[in-house]
């Protein structure tokens, strides 16, 4: 069983986001990147599957700031092979371009399973998973919390809002969008990451020029206005209750 996990690095929202001078992108100099949270679950799910049924886990990431830490941490958790996609990542890369590039790297690996995080907060042109499945001509199921493998098939639990779960069977090879791994991503002691930095190797693969068609152009990027403090509602209990009911309606909860 060869499981490939392509991951994405996304802006860390702990830091203030700054719009660049062009007014249509985030300023890369102030941006801090981190592993997309759902991709962390995809890595965990891949390692859990490997621990249960054997196999190999390959993690692929674009060459952006912090990528080495992400890959070595994955190795410390149990990933076998680390691939870094190099060149062309200075420019804005959308998910269509990323999915095309990743598909080219994945094809020769002939994986049985490709796991991706179901989404990231910066997917302006759709999440990676279904796009990648399209380019690889594999089936895709997303919003998955729970995967088991047997006889060339994956049985997955797809989540719908409200808690309903559909159990689906998917013929492999396939791409799955992971919402949550069977267990929360494990903690890996810092000493283990340091060990991985010494023992694991990161393979660099050059990607051909990126094709960004399929995503929209951004003409303007801006921050939504946020009220610094609550708008205070005044009046007698009945009057405030009326205002609240109107608010509930506006919010679509009534």
């Amino acid at each position, binding site marked *: 069983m060869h499981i490939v996990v392509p991951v994405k690095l996304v802006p860390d929202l*702990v*830091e203030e986001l700054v719009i660049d001078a062009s007014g249509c992108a985030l300023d890369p100099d102030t941006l801090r990147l981190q592993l997309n949270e759902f991709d962390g679950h995809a890595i965990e799910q891949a390692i859990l599957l490997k621990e249960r049924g054997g196999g190999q886990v390959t993690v692929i990431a674009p060459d952006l700031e912090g990528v080495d830490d992400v890959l070595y941490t994955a190795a410390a958790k149990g990933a076998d092979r680390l691939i870094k996609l190099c060149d062309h990542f200075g420019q804005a890369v959308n998910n269509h371009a990323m999915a095309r590039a990743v598909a080219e790297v994945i094809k020769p690996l002939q994986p049985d399973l490709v796991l991706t995080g179901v989404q990231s907060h910066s997917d302006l042109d759709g999440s990676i998973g279904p796009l990648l499945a399209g380019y690889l001509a594999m089936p895709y199921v997303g919003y998955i919390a729970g995967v088991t493998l047997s006889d060339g098939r994956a049985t997955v639990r797809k989540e719908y809002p409200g808690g309903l779960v559909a159990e689906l069977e998917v013929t492999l090879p396939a791409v799955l969008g992971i919402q949550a791994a069977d267990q*929360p991503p*494990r*903690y890996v*002691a810092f000493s283990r990451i340091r060990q991985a930095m010494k023992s694991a190797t990161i393979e660099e693969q050059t990607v051909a020029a990126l094709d960004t068609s399929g995503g929209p152009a951004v003409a303007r990027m801006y921050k939504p206005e946020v009220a610094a403090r609550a708008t205070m509602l005044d009046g007698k209990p009945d009057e405030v209750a009326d205002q609240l009911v109107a608010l509930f309606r506006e919010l679509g909860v009534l």
Partner: protein
Amino acid sequence: MATATVPPSSATFSKSFYASLHEIPGGEKVRTCLQCGTCNGVCPFGYLMDYPPGKMIAALRAQRFERVTEAETVWMCVSCYACSQVCPVRIPLTAGLMTRAKEELLLAGNIPSELQIALENTQRYGNPLGESPRKRADWAKGVKPRVPIMSEERRPVEVLWFVGDYGSYHPRVQPVSRALANVFNALRIDFGILGAEEVSDGDSQRLAGERGLFEMLAAKNGRAFSQYEFKEIVTGDPHAYNAFKNEYPRLGIAYPVRHYTEFLAERLDALKPLLKHEVNARVTYHDPCYLGRANGVFEAPRQLLSAIPGIELVEMPHNRTTSLCCGGGGGGMWIDGFQWEKAHTRLSEWRVREAMKVGADILAVACPYEAPRFEDATKTVPGAARLIVRDIAELLAEAMGD
């Protein structure tokens, strides 16, 4: 909590663990354990642990140490040093046995999920709260005169003030940092802070079993220290104090360090004339574990409080070496939920009850973990709502008319 594999049950594990204890200063004393059980009795959460320190040593001797790591109640240990303090043969129980046991659980990936978040935050941001490292000096905005940041000053200073994680970021402790800055300014202390170059001292992470992370943080702080000229480090955080005094030197990072209470107590002559405003209150002082028991600083905080006009200083039954832990040490700060599930009580509440019993109006503290923890406890202990929790720095600033 992630269920990860614990080390295989075997005498080998017990033997290698036993051997590893000897690498800690004084660690060989574990051989001399009398099995007197004093440690089990004095441990504030000992009654909840399957293996309190003494029983842990018994399991080790029986070569069944895997039972200890399987039980995972070692996460109830708040590294308060109470056991180490009472041990008649001075076995380093906190620094050695308990911390090593946590390290084993952590290496096996078997840690409370809350702790995992704090440790991952520390790995990523250099602080357990998960705050932006760029905002580490934001607390100082508005302090006048301005709080000097070393990278901007580019000049030698007398005092490098290590503000610490909670002093930098926690909304209840930021005012303590501002109060201390005002006190320093009033005394015309030549000081500077590291700002964004400062990272967590890492001591509580170390005592929670994350030695590798501690070493990484120490190296980062060490690099920052080495870039600047200063005579000594002063900190308001007893955990940082403990790290710089007792742990960093072993990693080759050695600087003189004092807690702010020691530093200010030495300047009482200059300080006293500034304390013009009376603080009319009955005040009791809580000895932080890492200032008191672990490092023997008992009198400086009391001298400062006594210097404030109007204050009547009273002692709680548990004071100095027998002080009760606030519950925040050794990672306790980050596993409140886990410990609550096991204990259904909080150590901070015991302390607040004791403060109430001696009729205190103000519970004075000197550690950044304590103001938030005790203030929280005053909300749940019946009748404790009137108890005010203040850091000594805040009381000094108030007496200066701040």
